């Protein structure tokens, strides 16, 4: 297959993927914030309906703010990861397949995704503690908890980061070779 034809296919693929990721980005943002706002502020009784929370526990507003803050941070970092992916796809769509900025955006995508999974895990540490903070008894301590799917995503994102790094070096070598006659 001709290089130019392959390039066109890659660019078309990026357009399709961009459309799908954009839809997902809007859905993810809307759905995640809707859940967080509803849980923390919208329907106040939801907190007490959690199995480990006592029904008569009075949840202070400051606890709700902290819980929402941590949840929102996890959402925002995930959004940043998706946006980095969209930026990369847009560069591919325009035609920048093999340059330093595209390589760096692969690295940024990987790094932000790892960071998002990290924030998600930290949120997990405080999740049960904050939920049960106002129980008369049976309060849960801050504890190490992790989601295996978060770990899997973080490992894959680390591979992406490394791939971006290798690509950056390859771009540098190519540029250096071009300077040799």
């Amino acid at each position, binding site marked *: 297959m001709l290089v130019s034809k392959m390039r066109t296919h890659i660019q078309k693929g990026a357009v399709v993927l961009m459309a799908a990721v954009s839809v997902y980005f809007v859905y993810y943002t809307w759905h995640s914030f809707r859940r967080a706002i509803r849980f923390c502020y919208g329907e106040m009784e939801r907190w007490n309906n959690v199995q480990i929370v006592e029904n008569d526990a009075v949840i202070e507003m400051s606890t709700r703010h902290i819980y929402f803050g941590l949840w929102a941070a996890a959402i925002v970092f995930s959004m940043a990861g998706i946006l980095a992916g969209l930026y990369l796809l847009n560069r591919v769509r325009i035609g920048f397949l093999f340059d330093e900025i595209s390589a760096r955006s692969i690295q940024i995508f990987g790094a932000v995704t790892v960071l998002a999974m990290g924030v998600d895990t930290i949120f997990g540490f405080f999740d049960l503690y904050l939920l049960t903070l106002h129980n008369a008894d049976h309060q849960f301590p801050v504890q190490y908890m992790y989601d295996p799917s978060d770990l899997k995503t973080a490992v894959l994102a680390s591979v992406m980061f490394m791939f971006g790094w290798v690509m950056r070096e390859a771009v540098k070598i190519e540029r*250096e070779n071009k*300077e*040799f*006659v």
Partner: protein
Amino acid sequence: MGIIVRLDVMLATRKMKSKDLAAAIGISEQNLSLLKSGKVRGVRFETLAKICDVLDCQPADLLEYEAEG
């Protein structure tokens, strides 16, 4: 850089045009021009060998070191 490219001198000596040399060694005229002006980071041994072959000269006839300062 202390390396001076004497390709233009050799071309004049051999009464050869840059265009012909570029065609003979298989590089673009633009790259040959960059090489002549010394605006390249390096020259491949392969290119150097081809130039020496076409101009019937030695690498030392094409490159010269000049101490800086």
